[in-house]
């Protein structure tokens, strides 16, 4: 076990470097994708690659920048916070509650900067090939750049308000990109579903932000952390409520049971979108939020842990089961993502800050790799369904091998990245006393290995079941696959417990570069026994999956048609969650609407009508009695007089100039005579 000494606690923040130029101006990274967005919007259509140049350029700069930060942080640890006050939200107890924008540069945000830039860059490059010939390439890259910018704003946010801005920004980009092929009504529905489910969760996030902001008088994470670390009394009063609200918000974005229902449908978007947003980065925002607010949960709101761990555990296992029955390869991966997010959430909730975020880190590589591989396959066979694939290893060897690497990594096979991060989570759960959950995690590892074995077998082994002649993806797509396969293999070594990699310290140390110590629970050495159990479960799953699905096309078809009673229909129907959601909506919307309607019709309208009737009666009296019979009579009389006078006078205006002239001369004469006579 690893605990902070008192001295370390006191000086944790002071010991950190301020990071120099690159940390001071890290905001450039936040702005560049927006610049790219604008450039794409205005000039994208004129460019040879329809604006992809701008998006890739921005992320390439960001990757260099964040890499510098990454190594600075790895060597010495950085904490730097830059905020500008741009407005005032209100006055709270004599303190100004200000609206700030800026960036925080510390272990967590640097990890996310680098992750978003690295995976994002590779996915963007991949998308150039994948989206070639699409009708709306420019719109696609514009929205993609918008996403990158919003995501960086989110992860760089020094306060909750900016985080919410980024949070909604990525939600918007997600909505746009899920609905990219809006010609198909189903895609529009999927986009709407994702948006609405996220909105439901966002209510929790916003309420949590309000509670925290008005309790502390600030929205800054650093002050929240300090207050939590100091066990601030006023924060302690609202900690549980605020923690639950924030967790509810995280559940939506990170697709935790039962709010995960939007994520599989979100696969309607182009595959690069699924890879970057709905697997590697955006959906981890919830986990990131939990990590960002970790001191709150660690020091004050620890009572909420049981619920959070439970929800994470349910998510990881239930979603894994759902992945077993999907025919759509992207949905397999989507449920896998939900399952892995469950792992992360469980770990963070249980107190495994490093464990959860390390899994986020490694998962980003191999899940993006798997999605891109799936995209290459879909690109080749023009179908999402595994029943149309099979035997593709002969046609697309590079895709096959990288996909296998990703699958093994995801399944947690030693010594790939997924093994280390998953083992870390299981170890943390064990240390924290969530033994049951730990066993659920091990079972989940089995399930994971099983469905990945199924996916690989159905897609790449056996014989081809689809139409046409699939061929290997172009280099612009396979190079990113290889680029992601490498960290999928090696990233795990960054965080082998108790191992320091020379000047580049352990991942735990990087991530711990925060304003206050995390109070993280972390193993000092590998628990080989537990690792062996987890590995055994994974290998069992692999072998079993292989035996069931590998041999040939006919067997595959037969096995796939085999339906386990009760369980299969339940999974097929996705636990009836969509039905339940519909039922809830349908059941509540009627009475609720009727209640509102009744209130509106009888209470509000009654008051309004009463006032109206009174006014009308008064007005009728004024109109009928005073106005019509009194005033109008006088005015009508006056106007009729004026009218008559005008009618009489207008005969004078004949339009004949000569008559006017005559009148003029006569008038002059009369005047002269008058002067002569009366002088």
């Amino acid at each position, binding site marked *: 076990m690893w605990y902070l000494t008192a001295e370390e606690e006191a000086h944790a923040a002071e010991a950190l470097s301020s990071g120099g130029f690159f940390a001071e101006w890290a905001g450039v990274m936040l702005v560049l994708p927006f610049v790219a967005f604008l450039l794409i919007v205005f000039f994208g259509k004129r460019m040879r690659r329809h604006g992809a140049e701008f998006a890739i350029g921005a992320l390439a700069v960001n990757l260099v920048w964040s890499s510098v930060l990454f190594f600075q942080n790895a060597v010495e640890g950085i904490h730097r916070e830059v905020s500008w006050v741009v407005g005032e939200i209100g006055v709270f107890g004599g303190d100004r509650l200000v609206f700030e924008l800026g960036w925080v540069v510390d272990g967590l945000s640097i990890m996310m900067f680098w992750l978003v830039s690295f995976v994002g860059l590779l996915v963007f490059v991949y998308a150039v090939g994948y989206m070639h010939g699409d009708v709306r390439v420019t719109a696609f890259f514009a929205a993609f750049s918008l996403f990158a910018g919003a995501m960086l704003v989110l992860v760089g946010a020094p306060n909750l308000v900016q985080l919410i801005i980024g949070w909604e920004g990525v939600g918007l980009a997600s909505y746009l990109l899920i609905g990219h092929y809006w010609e198909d009504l189903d895609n529009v529905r999927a986009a709407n579903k994702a948006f609405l489910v996220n909105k439901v969760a966002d209510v929790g996030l916003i309420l949590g932000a309000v509670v925290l902001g008005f309790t502390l008088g600030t929205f800054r994470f650093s002050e929240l952390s300090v207050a939590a670390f100091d066990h601030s009394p006023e924060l302690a009063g609202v900690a549980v409520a605020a923690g639950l609200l924030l967790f509810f918000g995280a559940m939506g974005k990170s697709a935790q049971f039962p709010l995960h229902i939007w994520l599989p449908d979100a696969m309607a978007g182009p595959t690069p979108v699924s890879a970057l947003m709905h697997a590697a980065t955006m959906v981890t925002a919830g986990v990131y939020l939990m990590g960002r607010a970790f001191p709150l949960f660690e020091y004050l709101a620890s009572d909420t842990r049981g619920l959070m761990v439970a929800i994470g555990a349910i998510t990881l296992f239930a979603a894994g089961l759902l992945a077993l029955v999907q025919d759509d390869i992207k949905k397999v991966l989507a449920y896998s993502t939900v399952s892995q997010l469950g792992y992360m959430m469980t770990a963070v909730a249980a107190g495994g800050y490093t464990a959860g975020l390390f899994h986020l880190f490694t998962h980003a590589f191999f899940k993006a790799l798997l999605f891109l591989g799936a995209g290459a396959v879909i690109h080749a066979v023009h179908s999402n369904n595994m029943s149309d694939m099979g035997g593709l290893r002969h046609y697309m060897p590079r895709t096959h091998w990288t996909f296998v690497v990703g699958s093994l990594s995801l399944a947690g096979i030693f010594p790939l990245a997924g093994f280390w991060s998953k083992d870390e989570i299981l170890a943390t759960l064990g240390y924290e006393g969530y033994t049951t959950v730990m066993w659920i995690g091990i079972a989940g590892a089995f399930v994971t290995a099983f469905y990945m074995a199924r996916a690989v077998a159905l897609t790449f082994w056996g014989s081809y079941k689809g139409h046409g002649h699939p061929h290997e993806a172009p280099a612009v797509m396979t190079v990113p696959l290889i680029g992601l396969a490498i960290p999928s293999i090696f990233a795990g070594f960054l965080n082998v417990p108790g191992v320091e990699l020379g000047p580049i310290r352990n991942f735990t140390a990087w991530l711990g570069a925060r304003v206050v110590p995390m109070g993280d629970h972390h193993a000092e050495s590998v628990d080989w026994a537990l690792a062996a159990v987890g590995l055994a479960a994974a290998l069992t799953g692999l072998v079993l999956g292989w035996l069931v699905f590998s041999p040939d096309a006919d067997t595959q078809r037969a096995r796939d048609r085999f339906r386990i009673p009760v369980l299969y229909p339940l999974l097929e129907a996705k636990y009836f969650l969509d039905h339940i959601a519909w039922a809830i909506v349908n059941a509540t919307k009627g009475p609720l609407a009727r209640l509102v309607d009744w209130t509106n019709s009888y209470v509000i309208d009654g008051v309004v009508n009463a006032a109206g009737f009174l006014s009308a009666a008064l007005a009728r009296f004024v109109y009928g009695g005073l106005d019509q019979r009194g005033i109008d009579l006088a005015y009508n009389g006056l106007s009729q007089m004026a009218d008559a006078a005008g009618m009489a006078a207008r005969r004078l205006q004949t339009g004949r100039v*000569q008559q006017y002239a005559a009148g003029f*001369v006569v008038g002059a004469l009369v005047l002269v005579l008058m002067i002569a006579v009366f002088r």
Partner: protein
Amino acid sequence: MSFSDWISQPVNWVFLGLALAVLAAGFRVVTSQNVVHAALFLVATLAGVAGLFVLLSAEFVAWVLVLVYIGAVVVLFLFGIMITRAPTGQDVGLDNRRARPVAAVVSLGLFGVLSWTSVRAFQDTAVAGVGERTPTDILGEALLGRFVFPFEVVGFVLLAALIGGITLARRDLTPKEEEERGAV
């Protein structure tokens, strides 16, 4: 000054002759039933007025009147009349017959009032004769000295009238005509 004193001055005979000619011609201007005749009678009237100016020692003004009016304005009138319509012989409908009595009364009344006031106001005031004519250089110095600003304004008015007249009277060319013009 009695009438006999007045009539005994030879210059007044000249005046009387010119005045009668002016009035007779002026009368024909407003009563003639032929447009061209009316304009020509205006020439006669103005010639008489020019003669009166010479009598009144205003030689330069007289020749200005001849040059501008007879030489240009009336020619312009005749030009305009002849371009639009100029039948020889009587032209019916030149006058608004019903307006004649009213107009006669009004103009007679005007004449009465004006002459009555003139006589009452100026009685026997003498005027300079032919021999005391105003040297032209005085006029020139007045025009370009004290009255230079009104002089410029009048010049501007003339320019404006020139442009306005051209703008009003020109016929818009048809596209074909414009093309021909452009081709020249």
